[in-house]
């Protein structure tokens, strides 16, 4: 029955063990900060991308320079990240570590209290050694909610792709459906400002009386060979039709989708004019 002098002789002094425990607790706390930062950064990134995408798609016009939308998204994301970080570190970090490492929970909790109180006796020394050994086996990985972070990272990737897509294709939920009056196939603004509106040209539709003034008109011309269009044109230009003004040839246009009636009227006018010309000749 020997008196006990064995393991304690090989152990470092209790004071040294206590200091190591205090250092270990500080390291655990740092791990907690890191884990909180990981969550905050990932969530903030998701918020930045999501908000930027929403602002782009909605097409909200914000005052200021062109990068205002992006700046707003970054600012909100930063705010969200900071708030989340603050909330996460508000919960005591060492206790969070203890919660995810139940095998060292009570020992670490007791060792923290004992070390803080400066306890240096044989049993406390053994406790410090046990805790340090337990901490070597423990892991701070569970401080990070891996599933949640992975989901958020996937969301970030998705939002990134969607942001690129929205920028290239130009998705704008505020725009009306494709309209020939407001854009062409490329989505660009139309630069045509010529004849389009029949009402503008012809005025309001009114019934007119048949005219009673007869005019004699002489139209000179010479026959041309059949199919000789070039000769015919030359003869016409140099022939009997004269006018005091000059007119630029313009192709009339109209908006068939909206102004179907006007288009029909124009077409009717054209047909009548041609018939009149044919009759006169």
């Amino acid at each position: 029955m020997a008196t006990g002098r064995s393991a304690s002789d090989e152990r470092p002094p209790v004071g040294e063990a206590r200091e190591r425990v205090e250092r270990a607790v500080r390291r655990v706390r740092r791990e907690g900060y890191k884990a909180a930062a990981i969550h905050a950064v990932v969530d903030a990134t998701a918020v930045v991308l999501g908000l930027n995408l929403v602002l782009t798609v909605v097409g909200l016009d914000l005052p200021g320079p062109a990068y205002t939308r992006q700046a707003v998204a970054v600012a909100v994301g930063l705010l969200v990240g900071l708030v989340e970080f603050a909330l996460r570190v508000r919960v005591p970090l060492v206790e969070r570590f203890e919660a995810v490492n139940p095998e060292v929970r009570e020992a670490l909790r007791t060792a923290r209290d004992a070390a803080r109180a400066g306890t240096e006796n044989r049993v406390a020394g053994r406790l410090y050694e046990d805790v340090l050994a337990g901490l070597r086996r423990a892991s701070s990985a569970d401080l990070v909610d891996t599933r949640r972070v992975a989901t958020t990272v996937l969301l970030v990737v998705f939002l990134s792709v969607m942001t690129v897509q929205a920028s290239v294709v130009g998705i704008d939920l505020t725009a009306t459906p494709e309209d020939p009056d407001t854009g062409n196939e490329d989505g660009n603004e139309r630069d045509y400002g010529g004849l389009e509106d029949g009402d503008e040209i012809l005025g309001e539709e009114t019934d007119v009386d048949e005219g009673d003034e007869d005019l004699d008109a002489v139209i000179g011309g010479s026959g041309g060979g059949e199919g000789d269009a070039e000769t015919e044109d030359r003869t016409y230009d140099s022939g009997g039709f004269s006018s005091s003004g000059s007119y630029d040839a313009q192709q009339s246009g109209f908006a068939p989708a909206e102004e179907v009636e006007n288009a029909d009227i124009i077409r009717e006018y054209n047909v009548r004019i041609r018939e009149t010309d044919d009759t006169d000749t």
Partner: protein
Amino acid sequence: MNDRSDTPTDGGDAQYERDTSPGARAGVDLDVDTLQERLGEVREQVGKRLVGQREVLDDLIVCLLCDGNALLESNPGLAKTLTVRTLSNVIDLSFSRVQNTPDLMPSDITGTEIIREGEGGRDFVFEKGPIFANIVLADEINRATPKTQAALLEAMEEKQVTAAGQTYRLPEPFFLLATQNPIDQEGTYALPEAQSDRFLLKILVDYPTEEEEIEVVDRYTSRLDRSIPVETVLTGAELREAQELVREVPIAEDIRTRAVRLVRETRNVDHIEYGASPRASMALVVTAKARALLEGRAYVSEADIEAMAKPVLRHRIIVDFRAEREGMTPDDAVEELL
């Protein structure tokens, strides 16, 4: 009536200031690992004689480690004496047993002055009673008169006895393990609440399981000699050192607070008429520390508090008569608080 063994033989008064055994005199520096190994061996050695009753044994060891006294309550024939006697063998402590009866006088326990003829004439010499042992088993303490009970309880509280105007210190370590029978209450004197509070633990010894009982029968009916040999694995001095180590066991602040609140709560709930005293708070924490060491840990766990709550509190609270009428026991009340 009294059964004494291994009582100190060296005469005089001063020898009872300390245990004079070689182990006790030797300077002992026990470390935690060694102590825990020894405690494991104690369990193993006692297990050679005792079948089952692991919780009872652990509570008794806790009591020894806390330098406290225990009240064992059980029906007859459940190996209380065997357990205590075996513990005294394994820990190398002197053991004595007092069978309490209504006609037992305090001097029968503490000792008395007798006239002894010598060369110098007749002298009064103090003849020590059975209380002068390291472990005293006071059987059926509730059968002794209140006066005798008071003598016993003074001894266990003060660790000393007074006879003929002289004070004699009891050997260290000193443990009084009293038993009482929960049935057959006729002719008994129930311990006053103030005195039962002085017992660190009240341990209930229950009947063994069928398998355990078969093992008991096999073990003790296959040989004539009922004394199964056990080895001494811990000295009295080492036990004193172990008691020092128990006090050093760190406890987390929130666990300590929980223990104190648990005891305080016994004074507030409706179904408990009288709650436990602050002595119970101290007892709960120190027994939890001892249990932690016994379980191989160097810190107190919440499980230690929960395990020790009933033995510490069950004799320190009185259940309200309405709750008692509905069948609530002190253990139920503690369980509810837990």
